C-alpha cells in the first residue's frame, strides 16, 4: 500500500472535499477499514464478491455525503462507514429475499438506522436507474458531461481535451447530450414519481 502515516477524520474529510487528494483518502480507507467492512457482509450471509460490490457502493455514497455536507463530525469515519455498510447490505439482503423495501416511512425518527443514512440510501436507490441511463448515453456524451459535472473543468479546459472547433459548438453538444439523458429519464416508466421522493430525501 502506498498510504503512509495516519489520517485523522478531519484529514480524510478534507482530502475528499478537496477533490485532489481523494485517491489518498480511498487508499487509507481500504487499508484501515476494508476488512472490518468486509466482515459485516461475510458474517451476514455474503461472500467476498458481495463485499467488494457493497464496499465500492458504500464509498461512492460516503464521498457524496461528505461533499454534500451530510456527514457529521460527531461520528467517526469508521463508525459512519460501518453503519452505512451494514444498512446497505441489510437492504440488499431484503431485496434478495423480496422482503419489505427500505423506503417505508419511519414511525420513530430514532429507530434502527440513522435517518441521514437511510434517507440517502432511498435517494441513491432511485438514482441508480439514472446512473445506468447515463452509462448508456454513448462515449462522447459520457466524456463531455463527466468533464463538466464531475471534473468541474471549464469550457476552455474541456475544449483542449475534445475535438470541437469552438466553445459554442461544445456548449451545444453539452446540452444536446444532457437533453438526451433527460429524454431517456422522462421516457422510463414510473421513474418520475420515484425521483420526486428521491429528491426529497437526497437534496
Amino acid at each position, binding site marked *: 500500500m502506498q498510504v503512509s502515516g495516519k489520517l485523522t477524520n478531519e484529514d480524510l474529510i478534507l482530502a475528499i472535499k478537496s477533490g485532489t487528494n481523494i*485517491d489518498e483518502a480511498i*487508499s487509507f480507507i*481500504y487499508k484501515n477499514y*476494508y*476488512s472490518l467492512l468486509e466482515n459485516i457482509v461475510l*458474517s*451476514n*450471509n455474503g461472500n467476498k464478491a458481495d463485499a*467488494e460490490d457493497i*464496499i*465500492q457502493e458504500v*464509498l*461512492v455514497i460516503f*464521498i*457524496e455525503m461528505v461533499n454534500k455536507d451530510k456527514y*457529521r463530525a*460527531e461520528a*467517526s469515519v469508521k*463508525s459512519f462507514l460501518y*453503519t452505512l455498510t451494514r444498512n446497505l447490505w*441489510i437492504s440488499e*439482503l431484503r431485496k434478495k429475499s423480496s*422482503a*419489505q423495501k427500505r423506503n*417505508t*416511512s*419511519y*414511525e*420513530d*425518527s*430514532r*429507530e*434502527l*438506522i*440513522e435517518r*441521514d*443514512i437511510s434517507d440517502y440510501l432511498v435517494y441513491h436507490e432511485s438514482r441508480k436507474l*439514472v*446512473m445506468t*441511463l*447515463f452509462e448508456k448515453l454513448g462515449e462522447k456524451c459520457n466524456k463531455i*458531461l*463527466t468533464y*463538466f*459535472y*464531475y*471534473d468541474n473543468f471549464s469550457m476552455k479546459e474541456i475544449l483542449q481535451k475534445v475535438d470541437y472547433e469552438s466553445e459554442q459548438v461544445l*456548449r*451545444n453538444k453539452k*446540452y*444536446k447530450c*444532457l*437533453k438526451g439523458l*433527460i429524454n431517456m*429519464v422522462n421516457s422510463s416508466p414510473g421513474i*418520475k414519481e420515484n*425521483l*420526486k421522493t428521491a*429528491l426529497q430525501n*437526497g437534496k
Partner: protein
Amino acid sequence: MENENNYNELELLDKYLDGKLTNEERKDLELRITEDEALKGELEVLQISRDAIRAVGIKNNVKRLHQKLIAEIRSEEKKVVPISRNNRFIRWTTGIAASLLLIVASFVAYQYATVNPDKIYAQQFLSYELPVTRSAETTMSAIDNSYLSGDYAQVIQHFNTSEQKSSRDYFLSAMSYLYTEEFDKAVTLFQTLVDKNNNTQGEKYFEQETDFYLALAYLKVGETAKCKELFAKIKADSKHLYHKNITRKDIWMLELMD
C-alpha cells in the same frame, strides 16, 4: 429551432443550479417554476441527472482504485496465512491426522458430556453495538447515551421512567437486562418487542436481533425448548442476520438438554 429553444431553457435551468444567473433572471425563473409544473419537473430531472453524472464519475474512480487496492489486500491476506504445499508438509499433516482426530473426538465427547445452558449462552453471546452516527433531526436519547457508555443500570432506569418508549428503547433495555443478568426481565421486554412487531403492518424493528437475543435469554431462564425453537427458526432462514451464528451442533446440544 424547437431544439434550440429547448437548449436555451435547459441552459437557463443549468445555470440556475450552478448559481450563475443574475438576481433578476433567478427571481424570474423561480416565479415561473412555482407556476409551471412542467418546468418544475424539468428542473428536478436535470438536478438528479447532474447528480447521477457525478455519482458515475465517483463510481468509476472508486472502481479504478478498488482493482488496485483489493489486489494488495488479497496478497497481504496470503502473506498472513501462508499455504505451504510441499510434500514434507503434507506428509507431516497426514502423520498427525490420526492423533488429531482422536483429540477432536475426545473434545466433542467432553463437550456433549458437559453441555449446559450457561455454556451455550457464554459461547453464543455477542455484545450488541449501537450505531453512533447522528443526523440533523435526531439527537441521541438518554437511553442511547447510557447504553453507549456501558451504563446498563442507567439504561434501565431511563427506560422505566420514560413515558414514550420506542422499539429501540425496548431493545436496548432488554439488552441491558442481559448485561445486568436479570434474564426474566430481559425475556419480558424482548417478548413485548416481538408482540409489537407482530401487531404492526409497518417496518418491524430489531426483529432478527430480538430472535437471537431472546433465544439466549430463554436459555438463562430454563426455557430450553423455546430457545431451541428460535435457534431452529434462525438456522432455517439462510437470510437471517444470525443464521451463521447458529450451528446444527447448537440445536443438537439443546435437544440433549431438553
